[in-house]
């Protein structure tokens, strides 16, 4: 999924860079200082996702979970995924410096789109339905990513079109796997800590209710 330095045309690199800066600016604007620890920890979680390998056929792929990142973080998924890509590029040599913008747009923008499309419906559904929507969000964000990669290759020269097609079709099993894994993850989150997938107001309501429940439980424990 990473494009490396030297393959893309300068126009594509510059365009990607500009879009990435715009997305980062928007994402950082939605990131008040007291949200930074939570976003940083979640960003680290999504970095760890890329270290988890899941078997697919005879080979294995690493998770990306960008759809889930969009669901949990919204616009702030943009800076969060950018940080992960920056660290991977500098310390592991995955991807490169000049393509960082393009790679960020290719991975983070689908995450944000999937997040916006499915956040509301996931938060309102019961766990099973939410799992289905979460799975669709996960698969959609990967398919958009491969589509964006294919587009950035195609824009760089007609000779890349077969490679771009190959990238797209080779990723179909990965879309399915990401979809299944995201669905299961959303199901678990809806059962264990639905606040993670809820928007601000709903989360506040939930927090109030859960603290009441916890207080009741604590009283019961004392009485018992």
């Amino acid at each position, binding site marked *: 999924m990473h494009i490396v*330095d030297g393959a893309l045309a300068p126009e594509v690199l510059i365009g990607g860079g500009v879009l990435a800066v715009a997305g980062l600016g928007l994402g950082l604007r939605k990131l008040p200082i007291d949200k930074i620890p939570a976003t940083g920890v979640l960003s680290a979680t999504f970095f*760890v*996702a890329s270290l988890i390998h899941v078997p697919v056929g005879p080979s294995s792929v690493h998770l990306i979970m960008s759809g889930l990142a969009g669901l949990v973080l919204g616009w702030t998924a943009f*800076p969060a995924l950018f*940080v992960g890509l*920056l660290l991977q590029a500098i310390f*592991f040599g*995955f991807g490169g*410096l000049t393509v960082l913008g393009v790679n960020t747009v290719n991975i983070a923008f689908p995450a944000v789109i999937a997040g916006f499309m499915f956040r509301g419906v996931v938060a309102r559904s019961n766990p099973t339905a939410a799992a289905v929507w979460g799975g669709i969000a996960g698969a959609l964000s990967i398919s958009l990513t491969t589509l964006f990669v294919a587009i950035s290759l195609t824009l760089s020269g007609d000779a890349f079109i077969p490679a771009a097609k190959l990238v797209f079709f080779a990723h179909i099993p990965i879309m399915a796997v990401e979809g299944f894994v995201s669905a299961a993850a959303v199901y*678990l989150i809806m059962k264990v800590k639905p606040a993670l997938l809820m928007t601000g107001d709903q989360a506040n309501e939930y927090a109030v209710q859960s603290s009441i429940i916890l207080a009741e439980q604590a009283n019961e424990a004392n009485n018992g």
Partner: protein
Amino acid sequence: MSHLFGHDQPLSAQGGGVKPPSFVGSFDPRVRVVAACLFAVMVVSLQQIEFALGAFVIAIATMLLTDLPLRLTLKRMAAMDGFIIVMLVMLPFTTPGTPMFSMLGADASKEGLLHAVLIGIRANAVVLMMLSLLSGLTPVTLGHTLYRLRCPAALVHLMMFTVRYISVLHDEYHRLRMAMKLRGFKARNTFHTYRSFGYLFGMLLVRSLERAERVLEAMKCRGFSGHFPMIDQLVFRRRDAILGATFFVMIAALILMDRIYVLAY
């Protein structure tokens, strides 16, 4: 991999000063970051294989001046090559031009092959230079350097938090994975595997958010007011300026020769 961002990382930007830094490591990180970015931008715009090879040689020379483990660096570079190998193999067959040889009914063109080789060399040169100049930095130093280079403070803080918690969460992942293993879980190509990995990652998310809440409360307890002091003594000395200038001249010369070559022929 998690050792890279492990708990034993020095917390200050200076830290870990037990052994003397290598030649490349002795320069101001700011110069190294700017030089690596400049190198990447310039090399990507090279059009001739000869000059791209020149850039690659400069990158190798820089790598030899660092104290990074040689094998690991080369291994990372090879891993990057794995990403592009399919594309490079396909390029000769998809670029129109003078046919060289044909395989399975498809003609390989000379232009396509040259283009593929050029992309390969440029990619390797940039990655090698980036690994040589930057991967010797600790993530914390990188954060401070980006801050000093006027990156948005929020982004730098986000990066420092991410770096801090990657190893913690990677350990957490291994704990959960160990628990699964103890219960006889084996990763296969089954729906059960994907669901279990989903639950695993979901649990990781839940735990990390709870950890984040504790972290924020602990920070507030210690008077966190929305600003992190960045304490470091990055000094820009004369030799840093000399390195920067030399680097710039070298790259500019490559670019210039590349352009003249294109115009002349």
